[in-house]
């Protein structure tokens, strides 16, 4: 058994040791057992799409050079990539669909515990969809918008409304190259059709559709999810909270909400604050109810309600192993099927709630929005009833938890930059033009045990802000940096370059802006549109001095996100290569030739400092092309 | 303490010496070589001529080998006569040595045809390092050379000469190259490769006259056509060096006749290598298979039996491996099908475009010959099937496939576990 070479933050290390002492297998052990991973899989040259196979290409040239149907390595890898983009986009689009459903129910006053929180935003979005709002009742606007959005999901021809936000040049590129999504569900379905045996056998054609699918996510499903979540649950403004396992409390009922869709987590957050339930908790001997979250749903309630983040993706099992979690409630995506088994070693209950996502060993209580408040309270009550069963002698909560500030929406950034009286992006653009800020970088995505150092996000972000790059973050990548204390204004003074420090001091913001969960990567698209609109730093998205990175990506959703940024003109660096090196022409296309189409491209680099270098060089290249002033405080 | 004498210091002789020493570290072992050169890899002389390898790589066993194994070596000492009645050998220089057991591994020498002018300066056989050095010495002043004979020796010489920038013509009496090794079709692949690389092949012709005054100027063929040539290499076969037994009762044919212990008809005299005739199962009769690996194998058996062991020699099989300009060719057993014999069968695969050819020659469902051009990957398995006389009926339809291999014959061969690794759950019969 090879040595355990994983590092990571102190709380994770501590809990991993406890897991090992208890002989509980976690994601790290399972990762080692899978080593060495199959070489054919890693190179992207394995195809399981039909029963002529399964087929594999010999990357060393001796054996088969094509599958049984005749597909070569490029076709095989391109089909695999297109399916992955479709799967990731499908997840985000489905997430959006759930929220459209709730909007519809709220409009009909059928959703218990839900309401329109940001009516102004509702009107703005409705207007974007061509719905007249003057003199209309909010519920009517909501109803019309929900119907309009449903139609857009099923749209066959035409364009997506929110894609119109993009600068003209970008839209022209999309239209010229047939990349403009025609409908949200259509593109994903067509992706599955194209990748069947004997359909699309041109790797370029497959990738072009892949970009269209990704755009139907980024400017479709994800963006809809973000905007509707703001409408229903409030548009975020920066809040302070804490991150890491230390947020769990020995003397309170600990509930963890895990998964993605805020429809559930918001209801649980409300129920956890219910005075009756708090009273019940006290009757059971607890000092209160402590809600914390894992993965994106944590971030949804973090940015709107200040709920603490217990951990990111890799820590979900460790949270249970603290022995302090009375109930973990999950909906869908990024939830490990190992959780119920681990929970059975403790008193912890796992409750699954979504008909799409079943976990054997969990208790299934379907969450119906019509009875949202009741069901949420029922589940919180279950947690309280479970509290006395906690074996206090087996409770081990690491003490680490770090302050963080999160919740920077595009609307807030307007406010933040504009000060009290104006909403504007000008200070950001000016800062970039003047050379105080080099550019903006998105550091997003998952955490992955294959990156044994466990500190890739941290090293990358530190290097970027040291070089005056303003960083925006979402997802587990943001949680990773939060645990390290980087998501605070103090980090500006500790790690940021001088130019960035000056802007942060003037504006009063951290050098790293936490935007929220992964669907909120669409906020980056929206913000980029505003930067272009404000002017002076590029007339289209691909001219902006920006770059993106997913240093430890794991999920297919990350692939979809990466590709909607590439299709929108951005350089995206993945820390772990996507499996395609076995397909030489496809590799060349995604890392090089695609830049001629959309202005964006994919790059792979595992070392965080080198990753930063690639992004900084790219940003510098864009600065040069725009004739911006040289960096004020050059490194 | 016995006294072993080995006449011959090449493949067979050295294999015998090693086999003896494995069993008997005390007795005296004396080796005689008629060449004035340490034991060398004879088959590498064409690479040496071509300057593919340097002289230091041609040594087969260094001086230290003889010292470490306590072997007395006489170089440049030809044994001219054997006296079996008195158990002694007499050398050219009149010295005499007695033996308890004797191995005759004297090899063979190139045959020269009685073409007019064949005795001129500039005509060489291609067998020894001496031949090679003499040819090499002439290369700086050689523009054009002729090779007589289209066998392995001739073609290897042609390769060496061509590599050194000499214009080469190969003159072959038969209608194809390598007529002893390959069938017509396979020979075509080789010929095309040679021609692509600038070696001219002339078929169906023989040299009628070698023209020149002392030195060679030209070669004239049967047809009357003549070519400029100042160097001739003769590759028209070898004849065993067995003059030394002429006055004895040792039975011989073309070579010394060996039984299945590799003894001659005289109990303490053994024979191995290019001078020995052994039973060839693919031909069904005794023959000389003058091939390096065969000589080594035979030498091993002789040495073992001379030292008191009782090994049975299962017979020799023709086996040749050669590569021409990136085209590998292997020939096993015999490809020549007896005219009219009903129970012969040929399995054939040919892909001219990719230079791939495979032919299996069967007699009563036993493989007696196999030819491989281009793809020689698991030819060893076929050699095994020939030698171990495996009936191929259970997997006949798989023989020509790329995926055929050892696992297909596993259940039909006997194996000693001392063969290192193994497969668990092998079927036990």
């Amino acid at each position, binding site marked *: 058994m090879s040595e355990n070479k994983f590092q990571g933050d102190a709380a994770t290390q501590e809990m991993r040791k406890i897991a090992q002492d208890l002989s509980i297998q976690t994601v790290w052990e399972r990762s080692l057992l899978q080593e*060495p991973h*199959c*070489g*054919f899989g*890693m*190179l992207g040259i394995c195809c399981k799409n039909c029963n002529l196979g399964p087929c594999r290409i010999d*990357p*060393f040239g*001796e*054996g088969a050079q094509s599958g049984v149907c005749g597909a070569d390595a490029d076709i095989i890898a391109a089909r695999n990539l297109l399916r992955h983009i479709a799967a990731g986009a499908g997840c985000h689009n489905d997430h959006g669909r759930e929220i459209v459903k709730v909007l519809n129910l709220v409009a009909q006053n059928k959703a218990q515990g839900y309401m329109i929180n940001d009516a102004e935003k509702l009107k703005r979005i409705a207007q974007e969809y061509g719905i007249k709002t003057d003199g209309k009742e909010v519920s009517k606007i909501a109803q019309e918008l929900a119907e309009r959005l449903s139609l857009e999901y099923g749209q066959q021809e035409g364009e997506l409304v929110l894609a119109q936000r993009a600068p003209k040049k970008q839209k022209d590129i999309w239209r010229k190259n047939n990349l403009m999504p025609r409908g949200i569900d259509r593109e994903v379905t067509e992706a599955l059709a194209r990748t069947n045996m004997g359909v699309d056998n041109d790797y370029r054609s497959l990738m072009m559709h892949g970009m269209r699918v990704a755009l139907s996510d980024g400017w479709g499903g994800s963006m809809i999810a973000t905007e509707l979540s703001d409408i229903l649950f409030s548009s975020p403004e920066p809040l302070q909270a804490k991150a890491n396992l230390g947020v769990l409390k020995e003397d309170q009922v600990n509930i963890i909400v895990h998964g993605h869709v805020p429809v559930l987590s918001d209801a649980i957050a409300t129920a956890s604050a219910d005075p009756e339930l708090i009273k019940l908790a006290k009757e059971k001997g607890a000092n209160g109810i402590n809600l914390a979250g894992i993965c994106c749903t944590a971030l949804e309630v973090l940015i709107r309600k200040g709920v603490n983040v217990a951990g990111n993706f890799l820590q979900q099992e460790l949270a249970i192993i603290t022995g302090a979690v009375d109930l973990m409630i999950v909906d869908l995506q990024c939830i490990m099927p190992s959780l119920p088994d681990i929970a059975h070693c403790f008193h912890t209950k796992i409750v699954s709630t979504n008909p799409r996502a079943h976990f054997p060993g969990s208790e299934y209580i379907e969450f119906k929005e019509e009875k949202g408040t009741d069901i949420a309270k029922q589940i919180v009550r279950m947690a309280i009833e479970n509290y006395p069963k906690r074996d206090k002698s087996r409770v081990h909560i690491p003490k680490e938890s770090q302050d963080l500030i999160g919740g920077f929406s595009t609307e807030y950034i307007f406010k933040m930059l504009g000060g009290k009286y104006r909403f504007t992006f000008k200070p950001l653009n000016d800062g970039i033009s003047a050379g105080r800020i080099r550019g903006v970088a998105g550091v997003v995505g998952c955490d992955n045990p294959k990156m044994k150092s466990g500190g890739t996000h941290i090293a990358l972000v530190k290097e970027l802000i040291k070089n005056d790059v303003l960083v925006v973050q979402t997802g587990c990548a943001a949680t990773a940096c939060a645990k390290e204390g980087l998501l605070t204004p103090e980090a500006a003074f500790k790690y940021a370059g001088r130019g960035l420090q000056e802007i942060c001091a003037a504006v009063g913001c951290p050098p790293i802006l936490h935007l929220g969960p992964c669907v909120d990567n669409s906020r980056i698209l929206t913000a980029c549109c505003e930067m272009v609109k404000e002017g002076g730093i590029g007339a289209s998205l691909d001219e902006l001095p920006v770059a993106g990175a997913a240093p430890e990506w794991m999920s297919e959703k990350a692939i979809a996100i990466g590709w909607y940024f590439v299709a929108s003109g951005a350089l995206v660096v993945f820390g772990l290569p996507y499996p395609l*090196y*076995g397909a030489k022409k496809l590799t060349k296309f995604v890392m090089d030739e695609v830049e001629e189409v959309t202005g964006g491209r994919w790059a792979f680099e595992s070392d965080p400092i080198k990753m930063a270098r690639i992004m900084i060089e790219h940003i510098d290249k864009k600065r040069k092309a725009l004739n911006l002033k040289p960096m004020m405080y050059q490194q | 303490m016995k006294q072993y004498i080995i006449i011959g210091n090449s493949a067979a002789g050295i*294999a015998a010496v090693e086999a003896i020493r494995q069993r008997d570290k005390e007795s005296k072992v004396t080796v005689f070589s008629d060449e004035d050169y340490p034991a060398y*890899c*004879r*088959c*590498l002389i064409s690479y040496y001529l071509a300057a*593919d390898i340097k002289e230091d*790589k041609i040594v*087969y066993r260094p001086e230290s080998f003889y010292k470490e194994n306590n072997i007395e070596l006489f170089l440049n000492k030809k044994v001219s006569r054997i006296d079996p009645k008195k158990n002694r050998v007499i050398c050219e220089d009149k010295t005499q040595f007695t033996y308890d057991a004797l191995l005759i591994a004297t090899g063979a020498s190139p045959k020269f045809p009685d073409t007019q002018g064949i005795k001129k300066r500039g005509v060489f056989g291609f067998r020894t390092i001496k031949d090679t050095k003499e040819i090499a010495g002439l290369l700086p002043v050689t523009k054009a050379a002729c090779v007589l004979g289209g066998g392995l020796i001739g073609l290897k010489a042609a390769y060496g000469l061509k590599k050194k920038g000499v214009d080469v013509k190969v003159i072959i009496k038969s209608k194809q190259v390598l007529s002893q090794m390959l069938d017509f079709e396979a020979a075509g692949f080789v010929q095309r490769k040679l021609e692509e690389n600038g070696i001219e092949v002339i078929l169906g012709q023989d040299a009628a006259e070698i023209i020149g005054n002392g030195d060679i100027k030209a070669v004239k063929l049967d047809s009357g056509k003549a070519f400029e040539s100042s160097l001739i290499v003769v590759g028209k076969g070898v004849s065993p060096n067995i003059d030394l037994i002429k006055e004895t009762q040792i039975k011989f044919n073309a070579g010394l006749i060996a039984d299945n212990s590799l003894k001659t008809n005289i109990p303490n005299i053994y024979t191995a290598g290019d001078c020995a005739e052994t039973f060839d199962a693919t031909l069904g009769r005794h023959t000389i298979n003058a091939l*390096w*690996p065969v000589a*080594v*194998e035979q030498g*091993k058996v002789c040495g073992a039996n001379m030292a008191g062991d009782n090994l049975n020699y299962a017979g020799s099989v023709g086996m*040749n*491996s050669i*590569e021409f300009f*990136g085209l590998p060719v*292997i020939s*096993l057993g015999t490809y020549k099908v007896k005219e009219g014999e009903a129970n012969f069968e040929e399995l054939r695969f040919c892909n001219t475009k990719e230079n791939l050819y495979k032919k299996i020659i069967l007699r009563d469902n036993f493989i007696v010959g196999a030819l491989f051009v281009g793809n*020689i*990957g*698991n*030819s*060893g*398995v076929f*050699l*095994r099937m020939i030698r171990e006389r495996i009936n191929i009926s259970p997997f006949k339809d798989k023989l020509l496939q790329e*995926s055929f*291999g*050892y*696992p*297909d014959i*596993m259940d039909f061969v*006997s194996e*000693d*576990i*001392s*063969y*290192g*690794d*193994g*497969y*668990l*759950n*092998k*079927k*036990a*019969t």
Partner: protein
Amino acid sequence: MKQLYYDVKKCLGCKSCEIACALAHSVSSDLFKAIKEEILSLPRKKVISSKDKNYPVSCRHCKDPKCVDACMAAALVYDKEKGMVLHDEKRCVGCWMCVMVCPYGAIRPNIKTKIPVRCDKCKDKGEPTCVKACPTGAIIWQEEIALPAGTLSEKR
């Protein structure tokens, strides 16, 4: 002396051992770089299917090696101490005699490099790479005497 054994019941024919082997003998030892090397490494082990089973085939380092006998350049030698057939690339001329005589077909020619492709039990690495690479544990690396009696068929 450790040997390689194969539990044929567990071999799925996935060929992960082949890839791992080629990779271990490449210049860079990095999968993504190895497939771009000028002269591609070749696996020393090949999985051959026969009837319904799969068999990894690689040099068995026979105690009485036919390839050593056949080598005309004295490039292949049997090392008693290591229990292995060793190959000296500097002496090898690529004549393919060894390919011709190997009773297991375990040697393949690499025409480009003129070197025979044959298993060297990853002699510089401590343990053959294929052992860990096999996802089902069909490749076993252990002392010859450690096997239970009757595990190998003892045919003669």
